[in-house]
């Protein structure tokens, strides 16, 4: 083999602590290396051209690029060598940036390490063979998991482009957190007024199949051809028959049911439609609240229902959807302030969370949009907002900024003043984060036009005094302790990953960070892709986000799916397992361990039984390779000989 080695300086990123010239020079001593050079930016257009020229000039049969992580630019360089006529798999990368120059200052040690990594790459490349992708048809249907604003946007964009969309929503209605909001910052437009039409669109699009009150059970398959099992949870109401008339709600005797949509500030019935704009607008029986389910007697709703939609014997059922891509838009949950015992959330009825206050403000909320405090229904005269409850606080394992609280406090303070012009609003904050378009202006309006009093400091304690609350905190600007008496305290609880996010990630085989937010492929350049091909992210499941960002990501994810579906087939990664039949002993161990069922039996003419890899199903994990006793099954491009050669290059 004739090998060319290209050592990237990456400006000074690599050359700063690695002698790239020396690395290239040393590479000429390695077997089969006939050309080696270093270059300022190998990934740049001229850098790639340099590789292509060298391939022609030196008749190279394989290329090693020593540069950044292959997770970054391996596809770039594969395309580059392919353009020059090489098979794209006759290419290896040595990661001398993330794994060398960026993590050590010792130039000599770095240079030696870079040389060895290049040597390993060369030895691996010497054992590469050209691989050819096979094409599998793409099933041009997309699954969107989560019907919040991000999921709705993604579903609508895909549907508008003509795709079949399957939308799965865990709750009874789509709309997500946004549906609970009264107004949105910084425009103060009505949340349900702008979201409502989109929700209706979802219901009306013929090419959107909505599975509400449903959860993803399992996901199998791979990009282009996923099989998703969805559990449709029992609602005890036949939604095909239910017209959403609401008669059942009127007659239901269980009227003390906690209203979860209203964040437990009000009561509802056991059979219910969560809110007037719900999509689908269908009733569901909350089993633990239903008189029939708890006592065995009642059946009022069944009797009253004009369409006979109520079925107490309904069970969960499973539907299977075949899709080619998946958009995950499972959103977020809000921090439970219980760990802040000193704030008394849960103990004092008038210490509430931001989302509860949102419901209080809402015209469709528990108090019909009248700002009252939960304890006695009195209008508050003084409201204190506490920022960063469950944000930027290591003590509760939430060191990150939730990004939206500063803005929603400002909004809620403004709205409170709008509702009750005489009310005094105080905000305890750490820093004000308002980097969006018109955001800072909005906060200034709260302070300057609405007279909201911002106190920079943390709240130490909240305790009752008569029927009022005393908020004790520090004013770090004045350097003094302050106490503010309030009728209502709103804790601006932060954003955390959605309940069940990790379990779903495991089903989807995508990664998540330590807080349960899903990992994008690259924090800057691949913000909506995951490392699992065909699975994309939208909205706050990836990290705290406000509405515009969530919507933008929803559209971005849709665009990714549309780009994927613009082709009829997808090239499968040929780095899959292959069987050397003469060495296979037919023990079947590979079949039993393969997580994808990608290996089957094949009977040869002599009657012997051999393992056979379904190349389009194989995902290239190599578990079979490690399991096979005679090593008859080898993962292409990660063969035993290649790994051993890398090892031998280091030590023997």
């Amino acid at each position, binding site marked *: 083999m004739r090998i060319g080695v290209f050592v990237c300086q990456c400006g000074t990123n690599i050359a700063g602590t690695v002698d790239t010239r020396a690395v290239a020079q040393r590479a000429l001593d390695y077997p089969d290396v006939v050309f080696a050079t270093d270059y300022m930016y190998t990934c740049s257009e001229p850098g790639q051209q340099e590789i292509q020229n060298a391939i022609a000039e030196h008749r190279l049969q394989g290329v090693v690029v020593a540069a950044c992580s292959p997770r970054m630019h391996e596809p770039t360089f594969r395309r580059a060598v392919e353009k020059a006529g090489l098979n794209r798999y006759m290419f290896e990368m040595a990661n001398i940036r993330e794994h060398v120059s960026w993590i050590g200052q010792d130039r000599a040690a770095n240079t030696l390490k870079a040389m060895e990594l290049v040597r390993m790459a060369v030895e691996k490349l010497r054992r590469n063979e050209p691989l050819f992708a096979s094409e599998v048809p793409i099933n041009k249907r997309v699954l969107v998991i989560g019907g919040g604003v991000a999921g709705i946007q993604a579903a609508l964009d895909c549907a508008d482009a003509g795709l079949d969309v399957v939308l799965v929503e865990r709750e009874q209605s789509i709309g997500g957190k946004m549906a609970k909001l009264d107004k949105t910052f910084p425009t103060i437009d009505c949340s349900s007024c702008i979201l409502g039409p989109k929700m209706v669109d979802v219901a009306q699009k013929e090419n959107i199949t909505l599975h509400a009150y449903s959860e993803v059970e399992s996901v199998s398959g791979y990009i282009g051809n996923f099989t998703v099992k969805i559990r449709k949870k029992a609602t005890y109401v036949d939604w095909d028959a239910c017209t959403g008339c609401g008669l059942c709600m009127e007659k239901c005797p269980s009227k003390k049911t906690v209203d979860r949509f209203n964040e437990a500030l009000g009561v509802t019935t056991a059979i219910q439609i969560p809110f007037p704009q719900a999509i689908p607008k269908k009733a569901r029986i909350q089993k633990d609240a239903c008189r029939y389910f708890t006592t065995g007697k009642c059946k009022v709703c069944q009797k009253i229902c004009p369409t006979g939609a109520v079925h107490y014997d309904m069970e969960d059922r499973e539907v299977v959807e075949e899709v080619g891509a998946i958009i995950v838009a499972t959103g977020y949950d809000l921090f439970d302030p219980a760990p802040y015992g000193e704030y008394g959330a849960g103990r004092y009825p008038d210490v509430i969370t931001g989302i509860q206050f949102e419901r209080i403000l809402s015209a469709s909320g528990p108090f019909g949009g009248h700002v009252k405090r939960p304890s006695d229904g009195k209008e508050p005269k003084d409201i204190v907002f506490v920022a960063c409850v469950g944000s930027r606080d290591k003590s509760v394992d939430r060191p990150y900024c939730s990004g939206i609280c500063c803005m929603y406090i400002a909004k809620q303070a403004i709205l409170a003043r709008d509702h009750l012009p005489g009310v005094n609003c105080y905000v305890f904050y750490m820093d004000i984060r308002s980097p969006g378009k018109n955001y800072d202006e909005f906060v200034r309006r709260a302070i300057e036009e609405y007279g909201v009093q911002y106190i920079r400091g943390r709240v130490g304690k909240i305790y009752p005094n008569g029927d009022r609350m005393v908020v004790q905190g520090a004013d770090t600007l004045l350097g003094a302790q302050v106490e503010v008496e309030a009728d209502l305290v709103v804790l601006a609880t932060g954003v955390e990953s959605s309940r069940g996010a990790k379990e779903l990630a495991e089903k989807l085989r995508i990664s998540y960070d330590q807080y349960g937010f899903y990992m994008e492929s690259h924090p800057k350049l691949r913000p909506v892709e995951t490392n699992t091909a065909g699975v994309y992210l939208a909205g706050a499941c990836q990290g705290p986000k406000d509405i515009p960002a969530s919507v933008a990501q929803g559209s971005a994810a849709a665009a990714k799916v549309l780009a994927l579906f613009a082709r009829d087939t997808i090239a499968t990664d040929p780095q899959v397992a292959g069987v050397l039949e003469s*060495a296979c*002993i037919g023990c*079947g*161990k590979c079949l039993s361990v393969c997580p994808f069922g990608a290996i089957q039996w094949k009977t040869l003419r002599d009657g012997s039984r051999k393992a056979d890899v379904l190349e389009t199903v194989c995902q290239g994990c190599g578990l079979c390779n490690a*399991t096979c*006793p*005679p*090593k008859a099954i*080898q993962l292409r491009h990660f063969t035993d000989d290649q790994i051993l050669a890398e090892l031998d290059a280091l030590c023997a």
Partner: protein
Amino acid sequence: MDTLHAHLEALFDDLELVIGWETGYEPLRPTPAFLRSREDLSRLVWNPLCAPNLSVYLPGILKDAKETGKKIGVCLKGCDSRSLGALVQEGFVERERLYVVGLPCPGTVDPEALAEARKSSAPVTHVSFRDGLLAITSRDGTEEIELERVLARRCRRCRHPNPLHADVILGDPVPPRRTEPSFSDVDAVEAMSLEERRAYWEEELSRCLRCYACRNACPLCVCRDRCLAESRTPKWTTQRDGVRDKFLFHMIHALHLAGRCTECGECERVCPVGIPVALFKEKMARIALELWDYQAGTDPAATPPLQTFDPSETGI
């Protein structure tokens, strides 16, 4: 013995052949016998010198055997029967095609220990065994030697003298020498310092000829002609005679037996240069026991621990 003959005589019409032992070139050396006719049955012997684990032949013989509907009879000692169990577990042997004669085993003889225990070195003309005593006859007369004195190492730690998975057990059950797993020889190695252990194995393995007798005698070494240790693609070992390559071969053997070895000790018995290679596998068996409470070959329905996983496992 007479029971064994009589039992097989009576059944022989339903059997394709019987695998057992017969007297070899001297009475001290019973050798595996493939008895294909009723007359052949008279050659069958069974005594503590019948060392070979006959389960090693089963995968091959079943593969080659014509489908006549007749079963293949095989005589198995306790430890041999565990090997059968493991082969059934892994699908190499269809249990229903076998007729397994289980022979409760008093223990087998270590030939070297026997040679040392004997006063005479004259060729042996007759051997018999009764009540724990070997009677060995040569031109110098008959010597009686207690089996316990000349027991093979593998038998000193035996917990399964009574065969499992048998169709019939011929002979009275033998009380096991051990009721709990015993790893005293492994302990002895582990009593050495790390450095001493390395030196110990380097010295022991330096004698290895790579004749692969240990591998070929192993009933669980199912790769047979495709062994990784001789493969050139992929190439894990070289043809050099150094300790490193010998070590690698034995590591391949040991790791491939991890969670599968039934501790029959054949690998060690057959080694011409006396390397205690079974210790590697005993250590593996101990790890499997500690980590997964697993004993290979005892439950034909079980899955070998490295062929499965448990998401709830903690501590590893």
